[in-house]
């Protein structure tokens, strides 16, 4: 490190210590780094009365049976590494057709007939009442028991075996991708500001992207107490006004935008977004984030992974999303471009600093939280 740089950093850190020690701060800001984000899944047996869509094996079986194979014969082909009795390997990805030629259903999901996947029924799904109306397509949130929850994304995905989980288990494909992204993607940050977060009152919730990747602790989770510099790119900066009551934060709807560098969450953008955050005594938080999301964004999450790793039937998902999308109609066609969705978030307490070295949020770690810092402007 050059001496000039060292001097600059020294000055910044000295200022940090003073800021943390400020005794008469009028507000506090707690910082968090998202340690896990995944499609909010709440599986119940009654969700899929027809038995569900299964996974890749069931999908391939259905495709082969549609081509005249018996179920037994189809399973034989799949067991034989997708190779038929004549030794020909079946390429399921290029089962679509455009102008009579094979086409990838990943890139061109409309090149294959809609398989009409089973969509989730049932009573529960995570999320929020985004449109203020409770109707036959609404769910009940399993945590808050709020009625009128809009989560058509869950309806699309909820009958694939990959999503037949409940926390703390998370969809397998997403867990793999997130775990990989943790070591290479800039961290996603949350901060909560208020007069006294130990009491009820108004708060501000801010989402930012960091310039640094997540740091892991000795068991592979996010390292509590680690520090992150906030990227001042205004795109990935979403602010919500809200309230904290009994340790739970709720907010007024606003737009949410976060740029990632992950295979799955390359981009997460929601309109009319809401978030509900639970502050836990150990300093961590968990949260539900919901809103209307461009359904093609999510489709691309899955398409990038392909059917083998995404563990879904892509033409089926594409057509179901298109069919069940419930917001933002195209003025020309009337086709809804957004779909209601919800994500579950877990986050660890971390420090957040600005590019000039100011500490703008404090890690609330267990019994001894460092002194409060003044909330950032």
């Amino acid at each position, binding site marked *: 490190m050059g001496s000039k740089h060292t001097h600059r950093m020294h000055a910044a850190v000295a200022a940090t210590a003073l800021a943390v020690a400020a005794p008469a701060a009028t507000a506090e800001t707690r910082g968090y780094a998202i340690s896990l984000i995944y499609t909010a899944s709440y599986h119940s047996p009654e969700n899929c009365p027809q038995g569900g869509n299964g996974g890749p094996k069931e999908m391939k079986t259905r495709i082969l049976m549609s081509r005249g194979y018996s179920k037994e014969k189809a399973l034989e082909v799949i067991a034989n590494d997708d190779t038929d009795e004549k030794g020909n390997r079946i390429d399921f990805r290029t089962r679509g057709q455009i102008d009579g030629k094979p086409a990838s259903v990943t890139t061109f999901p409309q090149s294959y007939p809609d398989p009409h996947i089973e969509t989730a029924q049932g009573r529960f799904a995570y999320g929020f009442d985004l449109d203020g109306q409770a109707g036959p397509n609404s769910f009940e949130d399993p945590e808050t028991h709020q009625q009128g929850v809009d989560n058509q994304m869950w309806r699309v995905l909820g009958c694939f075996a990959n999503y037949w989980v409940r926390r703390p288990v998370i969809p397998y494909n997403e867990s793999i991708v997130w775990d990989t992204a943790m070591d290479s993607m800039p961290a996603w940050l949350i901060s909560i500001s208020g007069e006294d977060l130990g009491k009820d009152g108004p708060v501000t919730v801010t989402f930012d992207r960091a310039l640094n990747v997540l740091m892991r602790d*000795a068991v592979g*989770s996010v*390292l509590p107490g*680690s520090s992150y510099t906030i990227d001042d790119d205004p795109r990935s900066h979403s602010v919500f006004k809200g309230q904290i009551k009994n340790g739970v934060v709720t907010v007024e709807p606003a737009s949410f935008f976060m740029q990632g560098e992950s295979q799955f969450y390359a981009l997460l953008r929601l309109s009319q977004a809401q978030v509900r955050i639970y502050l836990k005594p150990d300093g961590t938080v968990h949260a539900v984030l919901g809103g209307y999301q461009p359904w093609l964004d999510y489709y691309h999450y899955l398409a990038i992974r392909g059917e083998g790793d995404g563990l879904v039937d892509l033409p089926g998902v594409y057509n179901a999303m298109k069919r069940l999308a419930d917001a933002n109609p195209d003025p020309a066609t009337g086709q809804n471009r957004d779909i209601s969705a919800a994500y579950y978030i877990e986050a660890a307490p971390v*420090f957040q600093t600005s590019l000039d070295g100011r500490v703008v949020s404090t890690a609330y770690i267990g019994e*001894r939280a460092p002194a409060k810092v003044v909330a950032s402007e």
Partner: protein
Amino acid sequence: MSGAAKFLIAALVGVCTCVAAATDQSAPAAEPAGALYLVRLTPIQYERSIRDIFGSSIQIDVNRAAPGFRDEGLLALGSRRLTITSAEMQQYEKLAQDVATQVVQPNRRATLLGCKPASEKAADDKCAAAFLQKVGLYLFRRPLSADELQTFVATQTAAAQRFASFDAGVRAALARMLVTPEFLFRVELSEPDQGRAGTQRLDAYSTASRLSYFLWDSVPDADLFAAAESGKLLTQAGLEEQVRRMLLSPRVEGGLRAFFSDMLGFDGFATLSIDSTLYPRFTKNVLEDADEQTLRTIVEQLLVRNNDYGTLFTTRETFLTPSLAALYGVPLPRSQEMGGAVPWVPYTFAEGDPRVGILSQASFLSLNSHPGTSSPTLRGKAVREKLLCQKVPPPPGNVDFSLVQDLNNPNFKTARQRLTAHATEAMCAGCHKITDPMGLALENFDTASGFRTKERGEPIDASGSLNGKPFNGIVELAQVLKEQPSTTACVINRAYSYGTQRKPTVDERKWLTELQAQLGKDGVRWRDLMQRVTLGPDFFAVPSQATAEPATQAPTQTTAAQSE
């Protein structure tokens, strides 16, 4: 070198036939001119020496030579009794081949060789001899004898002929030099001290080596060798000139680091285990950074700022990495590093923060803990033994630890409660009385060095006293320790023993007592201490067997029991 000396050196590494072959075991054993001491290079000294001789770009594999054992609290003293096992010799063989191969690589050879061989495909004795003689001075830390040079040149000739390559010849000769005992051990030879009849002192080249490995933890440089060759180094004026020059060199940081790594027992990090399930914030990065944090703190305080040694216990200034900052629960603005080297950042803990001095750092707290729980006894013992140079007796063999180790007993939630109950047994009370008060003052830090105010819901009482001085918590303990005469005396004694790599004689202990009294008033500043020690009357003297008989305690040392 005398025949007896050669024989002794060869016997030490007799496991390696190639080394034995390089020495003249058949030479008649003549009466040695003086005493002979062999001190094995530490792994760090090996690395530093190689890089100082052949350049910092030389890559050296991890040197897994055993650290040896402690004598009087220092590995340096134990290294006088170290030999080389056959497994270690195999490793040194490989290291030697690796280093020699790198030295003859074209980019380095052009700089290091200093001559152009007549042919790249044949031996060139003249060119090789010039090179081997030059590096031999640094590797053996004395000029090669004519016989030695001839031996290595012959190795070069044979290998070059066999492989039809000049480089192969030089490589073979150099690799052979790198596994000789004369390189792997510092060979200290004595001679009669002309100024003090009837006494022995180190000869000029041994004096140069002792000086450079003490102050720099590495080989002498050209100026120091020149002073040895001319004999100036054996004069008081010449010695003073060299010491002053060497203490102004940036290489003095290497000596400082080596001394404190030894004194503070940082070799313990090689086997340190902290339960990651219980303490997930104690990461692998923390393990790698912990001793470096303390060494950087020491370098900053003692070298850069020229502060008194006692400052190490009370300073709020240190250096942190992102991992250490997270462990300590403080923010550390980070630049955007994506897989690059983790930067060290200067950091000052705020007034009121409990992190003061090196006792609040992971290198002390975690190194002196059990894997799953803190240990006031281990920490207190470490303060007594490492920082006050006192001895704490080992526990008796039949002691019952069940009360101390039962962390689930609802009646004894804190370490103080468990130790108080344990110490009701008479055989335990004596020792715990001397270790625990200081260790309990550090109980606000858990095994992983994280801060806490409670243990299992019970508030921690961190009060105690040392020599009648009360304290409550680390900030006050640090101040009390800083003001203890034993603290100053300990580092002075340790530095002297480390430098001479032996226990002080009776006369030396008297001299050290005077030095302690003086520095107790003036403060212990590193360069000043090094100058006083190396210019002291006996630093390069070779005690006779009678006067070298060590006392069990250094001059102002007291036993722990006496001071509590």
